[in-house]
């Protein structure tokens, strides 16, 4: 193929040809060095704090309060055990896994159903419903905060995981519908029509023909929702108001330890807890970084 994509062209670049380049007016050496220096400094600024957190979880209090850039004397998992058991990060993490699994599944099912119908069927009110969904992306959540709390309380769902799950789904729908509507529109109509000719119902066509075809789009937006809901802080803070520590989610737990670590004087424990929150996300990110980057930015470009 003649069209060489951007990243590929970039990867090919570790070229031996560091010689003079035609047309560039600057001295390449100085510019190149400065560019690399700037990029390297920023990379260290990013990696540094994350790596430091991880290392600090193996240090002792005295080591943490000493020189900030030394390695721990020994690698023991005590702090991790403390964070998992005593600070109940394990509990919060399981809660979060449960909530995020349910709400992402719900978001994807309801979101793709709505997007599919909005993208491929014309009926009165189609445009209005689409705009209703998409408009949700532009409002500040804080405007809805108080009434949302009241709505959930009136339904008897305050301080329950079900309440959080339903709210997560509802607030994830705007972007999901927006993204997937655009995606379903790009799929060819002929396959769906052929399936219908063969006697497939609308519902069956959707689940057995269209959903598999839409897989790349579905994967991108699923990861996007998993990360977004995993990292959500405000909604659990409002919907699981505090007397139900058993049901807290991980970001609540982390914020809480961050405040109490000072009193308990267990700094390694705090960093172990932070590492526990960071590691799963980092693994998901490294594995899916291409989809995540394209998913996150696709809402903004065109």
């Amino acid at each position, binding site marked *: 193929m003649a069209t060489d994509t*951007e990243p590929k062209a970039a990867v090919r670049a570790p070229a031996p*040809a560091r010689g003079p380049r035609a047309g560039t007016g600057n001295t390449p050496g100085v510019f190149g060095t400065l560019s690399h220096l700037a990029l390297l400094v*920023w990379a260290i600024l990013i990696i540094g704090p994350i790596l430091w957190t991880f290392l600090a979880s193996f240090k002792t209090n005295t080591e943490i309060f000493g020189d900030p850039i030394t390695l721990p004397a020994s690698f023991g998992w005590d702090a991790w055990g403390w964070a998992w058991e005593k600070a109940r990060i394990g509990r919060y993490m399981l809660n979060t896994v449960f909530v995020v699994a349910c709400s992402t599944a719900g978001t994807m099912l309801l979101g793709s159903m709505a997007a599919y119908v909005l993208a491929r069927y014309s009926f009165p009110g189609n445009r209005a419903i689409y705009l209703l969904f998409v408009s949700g992306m532009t409002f500040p959540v804080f405007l809805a905060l108080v009434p949302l709390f009241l709505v959930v309380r009136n339904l008897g769902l305050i301080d329950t995981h079900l309440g959080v799950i339903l709210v997560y789904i509802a607030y994830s729908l705007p972007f999901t519908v927006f993204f997937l509507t655009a995606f379903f529109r790009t799929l060819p109509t002929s396959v769906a029509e052929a399936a219908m000719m063969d006697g497939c119902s609308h519902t069956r066509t959707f689940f057995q023909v269209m959903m598999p075809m839409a897989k790349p789009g579905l994967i991108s937006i699923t990861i996007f929702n998993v990360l977004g809901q995993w990292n959500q802080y405000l909604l659990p803070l409002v919907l699981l108001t505090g007397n139900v520590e058993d049901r807290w989610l991980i970001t609540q737990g982390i914020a809480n330890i961050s405040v109490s670590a000072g009193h308990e004087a267990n700094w390694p424990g705090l960093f172990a807890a932070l590492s526990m929150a960071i590691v799963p996300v980092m693994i998901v990110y490294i594995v899916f970084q291409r989809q995540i980057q394209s998913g996150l930015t696709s809402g903004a470009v065109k």
Partner: protein
Amino acid sequence: MRHGRYPFVVGFLAAPVLLYVVFVISPYLQAFYIALTDWKGLSATPRFVGLENFTRLLDNEAFWAAVRHHGVLLLAMPPATIVIALLFAFLLNVGGGQRGGRMTGIWGSKVYRVIFFMPQVLAVAVVGALFQAIYRPDETGVVNGLLAKAGIEPVGWLIDPDLALWSIIGVMVWQGVGFYVVLFSAGMSSIPKDVFEAAALDGAGRFTLFFRITLPLLWDTLQVAWVYLGIAAFDGFALVQVLSVNLGGPDNATTVLPLEIWRTAFGPFRFGYASAMGVALFFMTITFAALTLRVTRRERIEF
């Protein structure tokens, strides 16, 4: 084809629309009414008070401190993020100059892109807790520990009222740059390569390439970035809540409207008053977005 069409459409839309209307649309609409009541506490019945909440906001010091901070955020955070991200995106995409007649990115650009984006996937609460340790006011903090090596006295990053907000802005930029590097890279890759190549052949240096070609052709993406970052400047809740001393302190030096809304609503349960702040925040955000789109409107360049 048409058989069973409407039942299908209705069946597929019913659940998502219902959920969305109950949990998203109806709260937004209710907020405007609640803002006009004196609703306090969980059991008391609301009484309609008209614009009283809004007139009381005018005398609320914390409210004005928050509004001022949004102003500072708006002037500092988006420009800093955009300038840094733009520079990096340019280096990563065409910084390598021309090789074999093609514009290339700088060596290792793919790895840089993966690293820069990392903070974006971390929870804001986690980032807040992390930077609390980094910014600790004595030598136990990472930054102050490093400064101490250079013989510099510890700085009260989060406890000095003149510095606290800037420390928080620093974290926002730290977290945000990666996203915009990727966003601008996507924008740059949709500019045809031959435009760069032709210009480079004509003797344009990197600076000319950047200011004469990249920047004008990237205008749409920049506009999107500006709106996104501007809207982010009206948030900052989690970072301020986790990082600041005494929720928005010291002495309201870092407070933001979302934090005030949350504190007013779920501390003393003053729902009416908190919703009035929500409405104020809503109008600020909308005004900002509308103004930006109006001021930055220019002719689209087709390519």
